């Protein structure tokens, strides 16, 4: 490759870097604004020109969120609902993904298409019948009233991801395990699941995020057992919207997702790209 061609490539790479920078700026600026605003005093929020750096730093918004409003219990509700739903999705998703990806079965294709269609259903279309159903069961304002619908709504996508992941595991892996003397359950537990871990991470993070940020069902079914999105939305009164407190609560809400994605970033990327390059 000549020097001129190399320079040409460098230009392209710099171009890519520049666009990536713009994208990061586009996504990052609101986040930056959210975080610094949560540390401003209520009076500083309306300053013009705005403060780009809080002066002075204040924790008042955070203490208000946790003390004046019941943000702590919203947080716990969210954690319970999200973790349970994610766990259920991963358990059922693994089983279904294994069956659809690796076992000889009739009607696999139809099932997969049906799952895809279900996952594209708009939530709002089913919310009224779900409401009456949960009401009859006496499950309004209960954890299971959210956990079960969340599980149902997130399963199709998880099954798709996991099924594709399981498809990529060579048949010989299972056969070797059989020859080694492992039964079917042992094979799935010791061989298939560890090999499908990146898929599980990916499905898990997507499901976690979806449940963590879900608003419509949480508002409709559980107004007395609020999760974070509903809780934050109902901060304040008709006369006053406490922006600082909302910002503080939002920062706390974003942290778990940020931490999870940061820890599992490699697994998520390999999970999303598997099948694309893996033979």
């Amino acid at each position, binding site marked *: 490759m000549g020097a001129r061609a190399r320079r040409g490539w460098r230009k392209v790479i710099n171009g890519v870097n520049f666009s990536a920078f713009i994208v990061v700026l586009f996504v990052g600026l609101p986040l930056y604004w959210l975080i610094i605003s949560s540390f401003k005093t209520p009076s500083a929020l309306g300053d013009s020109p705005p403060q780009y750096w809080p002066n002075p730093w204040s924790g008042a918004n955070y203490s208000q969120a946790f003390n004046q409003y019941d943000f702590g219990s919203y947080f716990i509700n969210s954690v319970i609902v999200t973790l349970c739903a994610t766990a259920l999705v991963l358990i059922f998703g693994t089983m279904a993904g294994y069956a659809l990806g690796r076992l000889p079965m009739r009607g696999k294709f139809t099932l997969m298409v049906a799952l895809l269609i279900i996952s594209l259903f708009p939530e709002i279309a089913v919310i009224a019948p779900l409401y009456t159903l949960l009401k009859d069961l006496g499950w309004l304002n209960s954890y299971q009233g959210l956990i079960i619908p969340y599980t149902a709504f997130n399963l199709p996508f998880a099954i798709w991801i996991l099924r594709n992941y399981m498809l990529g595991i060579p048949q*010989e892996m299972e*056969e*070797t395990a*059989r*020859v080694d*003397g492992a039964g079917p359950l042992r094979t799935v537990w010791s061989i298939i699941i560890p090999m499908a871990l990146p898929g599980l991470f990916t499905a898990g993070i997507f499901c976690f995020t979806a449940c963590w940020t879900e608003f419509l069902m949480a508002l409709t079914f559980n107004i007395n057992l609020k999760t974070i999105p509903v809780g934050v939305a109902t901060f304040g009164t008709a006369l006053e919207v406490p922006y600082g407190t909302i910002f503080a609560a939002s920062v706390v809400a974003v942290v778990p997702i940020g931490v999870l994605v940061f820890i599992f970033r490699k697994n998520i990327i390999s999970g999303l790209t598997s099948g694309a390059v893996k033979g």
Partner: protein
Amino acid sequence: MATVSMDKVNKVYENGFHAVKDMDMEVADGEFMVLVGPSGCGKTTTLRMVAGLEDITSGTLRIGGKVVNDGTPRERDIAMVFQNYALYPHMTVAENIGFALKLRHLPKDQIRAKVTEAAKILDLTEWLDRKPGQLSGGQRQRVAMGRAIVREPSVFLMDEPLSNLDAKLRVQMRAEVQRIQRRINVATIYVTHDQIEAMTMGDRVIVMRDGTLQQVDTPQTLYDRPDNIFVAAFIGSPAMNLYDAVLGEDARSIKLGSQQVDLPDTVAIKRPALRSYIGQDVVVGMRPEHLRAAPPDYTGPTLVGNVELVESLGSELVVHFTIDANRVLAEGAVDKDEAAAVKDGEGVARVEARTPVKPGDKLPFAVDIKDMQFFDTQTDLAIRTCPEE
């Protein structure tokens, strides 16, 4: 420690494909048996039936004298090495080798001792804590072997274990696999499509084609006395020269195209069955090394070929020539592209290095009559009297 025997074993898939037909096989304890044949001949299916990974449609499979048709792989006490090794990527080398022992609930220190010993045999000691992804092809192959030998199985199965290695490593591992097999001394069935592997490794070799057994014997016997045209063409590299020919009067000559090659009377004496073919078409087979460049004073039977190409291997010359007889290509013994590249009447001879020969020459070959093979054109079978001849 056990024998393996198959009695009229068949495999018919659900779609009706008859993959293995009436397979009979006896593998003695400690014997290294190689199953060889072109791809799709049913050799891997046969192996998988022994392993218990494929159901047996009909027939009887015995391991150690016990019928195991319906036994799980675990009950059959077999170990298998797969073509792509199938190492567990999330486990270290030590965990890979010890997995089967762990499943049998052996005490931990015992597992460690066995794994260490296997690693020593296979020269893997310093890699025990690595994951398979960090190993080279040859090392992975050895881990796969280690996983099999650590269990001390009664039967050792290998499905083309060397085909993923590069040519040089393959030659090295060939010797290593043999060394390990001798050491653990259990009945071994080894599947390959590479006839050189089959010839160099097997105590005995089974040649298969289209799901049927063609011949089972020692490598040398397969080479010297193939039972049919397929085995003759498949075993040996370069392949045997097979031509349509007509047997002359009194079985004292053979007509190859326009040339006549005289046969001594010992040919017919050794093969009384040839007499019934006098005046009829037969297929004649000559190994490349049985055609030598005839010295000027040579008076024995000769065959004159038009030299097309000369390849020097240093130790000898491989001479590609044509004669005006019809070259017989056994279907399936060579792959289609290779078959298409063979010219009409093309043959190969291996002559001494430094023989003065160049393309375009007419070279007289001295024909080694005593090693000539004769086959029936209808049945493809070798024309002999008794099998041990």
